[in-house]
């Protein structure tokens, strides 16, 4: 149970800077998700916490102690690897207890911890098997058990569910949350999967090209994205983010216009922004064959079946939009009317790609 703090941490391999000036505080006992596409530096960040990678510049602290030069073995962290990293020649029980035995822990204590972990992860009947005789899900649980018995200060997980199939992943992530709620260690979890991030995390740290994009709760990351990257990365299908001009109290898409609320209009005027990117989630769009108040029009390009609803790809003044619809009765090239939930829109500065924020009193602030 320790706080982990990154202060201006950078990491380079040769000339490639994979983590750039990272400042991040991981609170004691929280579940922090490091989320991002492959190559964004999230795994490297996790490995720097474990001491498996050197820090090129900056400092990492655990509570008050600077740990840059503390070797891995002295940091008291437990880690679950993507490939599980089980010792192939050791039985399940030996995999779990080996790390404790080399520490010369008392046999009683080892047994106590191991029994609890085997129980919690339903591994009792597999304890004499070799890893190769286990299914993927069982191996993953053994890796978890091995990390759990260590009772380290920090619990680090590197894409722990990515080798499981979709069904298993759902139950595994629930199990993980349960384990964390038992031990309450500081948990850092690396994933590229936004669903895992949303469901497991207390907070999400989104990274892209080595840079931290946003750190906040899943709700805020989803509903109040700090920049265009975050807006488009979180949510499936992704948010529509298109170019728009602001004039008086309207958003212009070429010749078409959307009326903004007085709060938004005043707010945009205050910030002085003119070149904007406009964001709206596909599920906040309502399509109609007949004209609606404050709507714009677009042409249907393609309809995709998503099961519970249909994804309708639209051409709106030369930009591609996607809207979710309950029905599939949309014909290619048909002109449709697009109504947007104006209380759920997002606006970004086109140059900095940052959100220009939200009007005060709009979200009850």
């Amino acid at each position: 149970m320790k706080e982990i703090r990154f202060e201006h941490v950078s990491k380079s391999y040769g000339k490639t800077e994979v983590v750039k000036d990272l400042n991040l505080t991981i609170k004691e006992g929280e579940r922090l998700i490091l989320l991002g596409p492959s190559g964004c530096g999230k795994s490297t960040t996790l490995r720097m916490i474990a001491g498996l990678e050197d820090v090129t510049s900056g400092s990492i602290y655990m509570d008050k102690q600077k740990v840059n030069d503390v070797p891995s073995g002295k940091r008291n962290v437990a880690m679950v690897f993507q490939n599980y990293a089980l010792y192939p020649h050791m039985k399940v029980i030996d995999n779990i207890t080996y790390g404790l035995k080399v520490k010369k822990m008392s046999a009683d204590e080892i047994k106590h911890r191991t029994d609890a972990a085997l129980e919690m992860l339903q591994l009792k009947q597999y304890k004499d098997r070799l890893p190769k005789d286990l299914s993927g899900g069982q191996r993953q649980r053994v890796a978890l058990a091995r990390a759990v018995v260590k009772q380290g200060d920090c619990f680090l997980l590197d894409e722990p569910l990515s080798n499981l199939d979709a069904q298993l992943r759902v139950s595994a992530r629930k199990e993980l949350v349960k384990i964390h709620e038992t031990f309450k260690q500081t948990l850092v979890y690396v994933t590229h999967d936004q669903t895992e991030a949303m469901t497991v995390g207390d907070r999400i740290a989104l990274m892209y090209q080595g840079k931290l994009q946003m750190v906040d709760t899943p709700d805020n990351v989803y509903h109040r994205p700090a920049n265009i990257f975050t807006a488009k990365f979180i949510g499936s299908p992704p948010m529509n983010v298109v170019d728009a001009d602001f004039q008086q109290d309207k958003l212009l898409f070429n010749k078409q216009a959307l009326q903004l609320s007085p709060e938004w209009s005043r707010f945009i005027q205050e910030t002085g922004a003119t070149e904007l990117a406009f964001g709206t989630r596909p599920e906040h769009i309502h399509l109609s064959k007949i004209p609606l108040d404050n709507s714009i029009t677009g042409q249907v390009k393609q309809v995709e079946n998503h099961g519970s609803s249909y994804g309708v790809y639209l051409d709106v003044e030369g930009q591609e939009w996607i809207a979710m619809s309950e029905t599939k009765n949309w014909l290619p090239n048909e002109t449709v009317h697009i109504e947007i939930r104006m209380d759920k829109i997002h606006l970004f500065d086109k140059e900095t790609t940052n959100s220009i924020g939200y009007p005060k009193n709009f979200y009850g602030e």
Partner: protein
Amino acid sequence: MKTNRFASIPWHILFIGLIIILIFPIIFAIGTSFKPLQDAYNNVLNFIPISPTLENYQTFFESLDVVKITFNTFIIAATVTLFKVFTSFLAAYAFVFFHFKGKNILYFVLISTIFIPFSVTMIPNYLVISDLGLADSVWGVILPQLADAVGIFLLRQSMKTIPVSLIEVARLDNLGHARIMKDIVLPLVKPAVTSTGIWFFILSWNEYVWPVLILKTVDNYTLPLALQMYISSEGGTNFTVAMAVAVITMIIPLTLYLLFQRYIIGTFTSSGIK
């Protein structure tokens, strides 16, 4: 992939050729060792003895101290093997799991020695052995053979297949290198260690050029030296005896190979673990 109908003539010719070149001489050697000399001369290319005899074997056992010679061969091969495997294991571990300056150059230079003719190093080694007073002793044969770049190469290849995360888990548990080598790396590369060891053993067992330079007394001879003695005997009158010695020389390596073939074929077909 779908079954290929493997029926065309050129492929059959290829494999028959391979068998003739690689396997026929072995069968021939075994056959000849059971032939009387006269028979062997008259029917050189017929490898089945007309009147099988053990007299070639008898001659060998009566004229030399076979037990002593076999023991010499064994002690040299075993000691050389143990040392080569041990030093190769340590070096391979360092090359795979350490990062240090000049690592790649050092590896390159060491591996380069595989391509140096033995003749080049033979004399320098001989001089050192003579200076140390070890000429005509099995220890003189052993001493320059305590390391072998082939072993470093083979074990490094095998260790490279160990996922680095296994070592990282151990490091997070604060394990030292001795512990990691003994508890984790050694069990995982056991097949490669075994087959590298057998490979070294067999090479040393069959070695002729170096031991013949060091060992002068027939009592200190190894089996290949005894074999060569019969081969090069005046007038070729002993070549059937030589074949008998060859068959005896072959027995121990072949037994070892067959006993550990599972490991060896494993290392020679895959890359170690799974």
